[in-house]
């Protein structure tokens, strides 16, 4: 049990790190976040930007589906400024898709996802760019968000409560006492190439797809598998709703609107090093063809950009598509006998707030600090205010 304000270092300023900085700062922690690049410059920035209703996972991964719908509702309340919310459709294109429909419909309801069969004609009237060949359509509460601004709005709320963000600070080592405890991190300030040390009661590794690499610096292991997928952005917004293929999660099963664009995704394969993942032109072509089955209009729209993003899937013996989209917090004291350090990884952008809540719960239990989480209730700060109260950290 500690009585003075506890301190925390968070490694990584993606969605999880930013949401966790806010959660811990709100619970009274002195928080510093170290990030080797810009906010959301790893997996988080490169998401397609889908605010999941959870329906994508309701048949194959109900735990992730339930997390998604609960967080979808919360984010629409607290982070409205970053979200365009026009709903989404799941559409069937063939008999196999239709055969998936009964399980989809009942499981979506079991998971608490509002789902409605709306009829082909109504779907085509609402979204004229949809394929005329669709056989069924279900409406779900999907949306789209701006990735950098979602991270920034959590970061702005953290800053308002005193958290400090050190972007362009690379972790090069952990401060260890030689008796099985981590007391902070050693970093390099990349702007000035200066070494620096941060001490804290608890260090949290929130580096997502890089969680294994960062844990290894402390001699720890985390079974995370970077699992990239390709996404393609198009010059024109072709629908207002998110369009999903009514099938089990598969390559090229989604198209979403974002600003004036349409974005399609995605594939799934595994890599060991997530630092540089080249865009594979054959995957781009494959995505394009699959998405054009949903919305043939795409064939007439110029591609604007193609990019890769490495999901942090929690490993084991299974591969890619079959790994759960839920998240996990590791207390390295329980797993490896190393105290003072916790890892959180896995999950989806949509679930970053609850990932932060659970991680902060674990941190509070470890330190005997009793303060409830309020992040689900209070609207987040204007994302621009991430830059308020700035110090020059160099």
């Amino acid at each position, binding site marked *: 049990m500690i009585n003075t304000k506890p301190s925390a270092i968070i490694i990584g300023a993606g969605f999880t790190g930013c949401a966790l900085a806010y959660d811990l700062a709100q619970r009274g922690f002195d928080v510093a976040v170290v990030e080797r690049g810009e906010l*959301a410059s790893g997996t988080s920035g490169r998401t397609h930007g889908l605010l999941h209703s959870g329906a994508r996972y309701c048949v194959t991964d109900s735990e992730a589906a339930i997390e998604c719908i609960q967080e979808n509702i919360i984010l629409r309340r607290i982070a409205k400024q970053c979200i365009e919310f026009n709903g989404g459709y799941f559409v069937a294109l063939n008999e196999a898709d239709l055969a998936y429909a009964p399980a989809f419909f009942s499981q979506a309801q079991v998971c608490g996802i509002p789902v409605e069969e709306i009829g082909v004609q109504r779907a085509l009237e609402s979204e004229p760019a949809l394929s005329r060949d669709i056989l069924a359509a279900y409406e779900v509460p999907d949306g789209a968000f701006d*990735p950098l601004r979602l991270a920034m709005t959590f970061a702005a709320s953290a800053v308002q409560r005193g958290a400090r963000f050190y972007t362009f600070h690379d972790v090069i080592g952990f401060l260890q006492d030689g008796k099985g405890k981590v007391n902070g991190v050693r970093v390099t300030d*990349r702007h000035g190439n200066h070494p620096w040390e941060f001490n804290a009661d608890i260090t949290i590794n929130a580096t997502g797809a890089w969680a294994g690499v960062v844990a290894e610096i402390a001699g720890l292991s985390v079974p995370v598998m970077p699992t990239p997928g390709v996404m393609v952005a198009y010059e024109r917004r072709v629908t*207002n709703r998110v369009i999903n293929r009514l099938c089990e999660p598969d390559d090229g099963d989604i198209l979403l609107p974002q600003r004036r664009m349409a974005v399609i995704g995605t594939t799934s394969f595994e890599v060991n090093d997530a630092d540089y993942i080249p865009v594979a032109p054959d995957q781009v072509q494959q995505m394009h063809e699959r998405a054009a089955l949903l919305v043939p209009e795409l064939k007439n729209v110029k591609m604007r950009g193609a990019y890769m993003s490495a999901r942090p899937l929690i490993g084991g013996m299974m591969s890619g598509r079959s790994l759960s989209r839920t998240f996990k917090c590791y207390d390295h004291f329980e797993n490896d006998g190393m105290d003072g350090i916790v890892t959180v990884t896995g999950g989806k952008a949509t679930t970053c707030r609850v990932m932060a809540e659970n991680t902060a719960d674990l941190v509070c239990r470890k330190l005997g600090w009793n303060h409830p989480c309020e992040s689900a209730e209070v609207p987040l700060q204007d994302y*621009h205010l991430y*830059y308020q109260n700035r110090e020059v950290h160099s």
Partner: protein
Amino acid sequence: MTTTSWQVRFKVYRQRTGQKGTYQSYVLEVDPDEYILDAVERIWAQHDRTLTYRHACHHSTCGACGMRVNGREKLTCITTIRSVAKNGGTVTIDPLRNFPVLSDLVVDMGNFFLRMEKSEFDSVASEEHANLPYEKSPGNAEKAERLVDCIECGLCISACPAANTDHEYVGPAVLAAIHLMYSQSPSQKLIDLADHHTGLWRCHSAYECTQVCPSSVDPAWRIMDMRKKIIGNRLKSVFGRQEKVKKNA
């Protein structure tokens, strides 16, 4: 996309805090249809881990990766190498102008973002308001909302000759934001934010902002239209028919 391979020299601006800037060159084998940001990322990942640059979404929705490519402001995530170089050629990459450089290609967006916050800029609007007023509205009668066009990349401020000579000038993006918000909900507060010598009246009508904007904001048109609105209001006040604006809204 092709599988053609080009050899391109990337001449990249380098600067550590408090030191003088220099250029460093890296020769890469590239696919000409790759984006400039992919090449920058590869330089960092495979050639030089000290290189710093800003990026996040890699598909032009976030605005983090603005740089000057061969002297011209570009959103590097959607700028193909083919569009700015040739096989065997050189591409020069600099940080944006008119922002403080923190290191290499990283500029400090802080003051700019705080000015955007003051302009009450809202990133989401109904489709009707998000589109430019002179655009045809979409045929679909259903109400939809979307993230608006300005991605706060700062390219317009970097390209603006007025911003280059007067650092107090709020710049095209902020004035465009004020115009967007005023179009949705007119207020005296928004007018006051724009109607002063480091606001609307500092613009020299160079139209560079609209030239470099990667996201259809058309800041130059918005600045001119906002001037028109303000002059219109003044004339109406002279002739006693002041446009109704919400006080302190």
